[in-house]
């Protein structure tokens, strides 16, 4: 188990959170954006291995990609990269997508909490 890009970005342009407390799962994504490109992606995670794996995967796959590309992410991304996960495991992995998308949303709203 060797997840990549774990950490925080102090001056992040967007921060997204997703939680599943009943499963002891929480993911926070931090993004740094320049000219509409994701120049840095980091995250903090507690959760089952699928939550960690999918977070790591997102951080590696979308670095240096455009915000528009990143917004296209959905569960097919997990299926394409991690194979056919059982439904309950997929639920945990989806946490990473929600968190990542939230980070992009807060960026688009100017770095505020994206509500």
């Amino acid at each position, binding site marked *: *188990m060797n997840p990549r890009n774990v950490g925080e970005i102090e001056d992040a342009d967007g921060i997204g*959170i997703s939680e599943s407390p009943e499963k*002891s799962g*929480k993911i926070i994504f931090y993004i740094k954006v320049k000219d509409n490109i994701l120049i840095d992606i980091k995250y903090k*995670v*507690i959760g*089952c291995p699928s*939550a960690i794996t999918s977070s790591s995967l997102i951080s590696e796959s979308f670095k240096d990609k455009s915000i528009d590309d990143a917004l296209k992410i959905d569960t097919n991304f997990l299926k394409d990269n991690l194979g056919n996960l059982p439904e*309950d*495991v997929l639920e945990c992995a989806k946490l990473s997508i929600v968190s990542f998308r939230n980070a992009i949303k807060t960026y688009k709203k100017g770095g505020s909490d994206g509500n």
Partner: protein
Amino acid sequence: MYVYLNNAATTKTDGRVLFKMSKYYSELFENPMTSNYSPLAKNVEDEMEISRENVAKLINAKKEEIYFTSGGTESDNWAIKGTALLNWDKKGEIISIPIEHMAIIKTLETVKKWGFDIKFLPVDKYGMVDPEDLKKIITKKTFLVSIMHANNEIGTIEPIEEIGKICKENGVLFHTDAVQSACHIDIDVNKMNIDLLSISAHKFYGPKGVGALYIRKGVDIYPFMDGGHQENELRSGTHNSPGIIGLGEAVRIAMEEMEEEKKSILFMKKMIEERIKKIEGIKINGHPEKRLPNNLSLTIDRVNAETMLTYLAINGIIVSAGAACSAKEKSPSHVLKAIGLSDELAHNTIRISLGKFNLVKEIEYFNEVFEYGVKRFREMAPK
């Protein structure tokens, strides 16, 4: 290094047990029910009776009170369904606790569907039942109390001697699931007033697929299997003679070596306890003193148990968890819930269960790997 710390799930069969069993699969394969006209079958029967004696001696019972089964689940099913069937007309009630093994919980659900009343006594934060609560709840309709000797997940040892006394005073049968405790801590069915008791060989270095039910002389019970007259007509089916003989051998070894084993297991458990004391935010579940020697249930703040399990497994260490989203059992453990753990904390809980084959160097290795894992996963976790 491969470190097996899941001995509450099953144990490795002792080599001496395996050796003893092997010839009952080969030259001594004959059916013990044909002992009247085959000397080899007679040998099998005699050896099976030695097993019966060993099991009886282990729990201070009589040889005639031991019935061989296919394991703990069958013994538990039989004890409950077999006594319920004899109360079919008047139905009545069974009292138990919510932290029983699923072999009891699911069986109780079935007899409830049959029309029996099931009452559960509460347990405290250690998983301990208060015998005073039993006194309050027991009625003339109660025909059976089933309370486990020791819990498989958190290791708490229930006050079964007091419970047995209350059952006896009220003329109620007392069954205990001793699957986790037999051959690990002392059992005396007379001192503890136990009428029915379940054991399973693979929990104490015996073979899988064999166990026993102790049925006190004079206790009426419905046969578990109808068929070819085996086990005093109460549990028919050709004897699993190699298994039964293996069970007896495992019991014999345990009677001789149990105390020594307990010492070495407690020593190794202490090594883990001392180490985790130095790490913040780890809580040991179950009763602080009245607990099985081999069990250590840990709730680790800000560490997901399934991730910890996976990480340990990658490093060759096998433990278990009370909850995992990819596990076959999807909801968190009913035991951890009953002692008041939230779903979140149940998902942060792992169980370490030691065994007699563990070595000090394995525990040293575990301690290193575990401590590093806790540190690393906490660094990864959001605050």
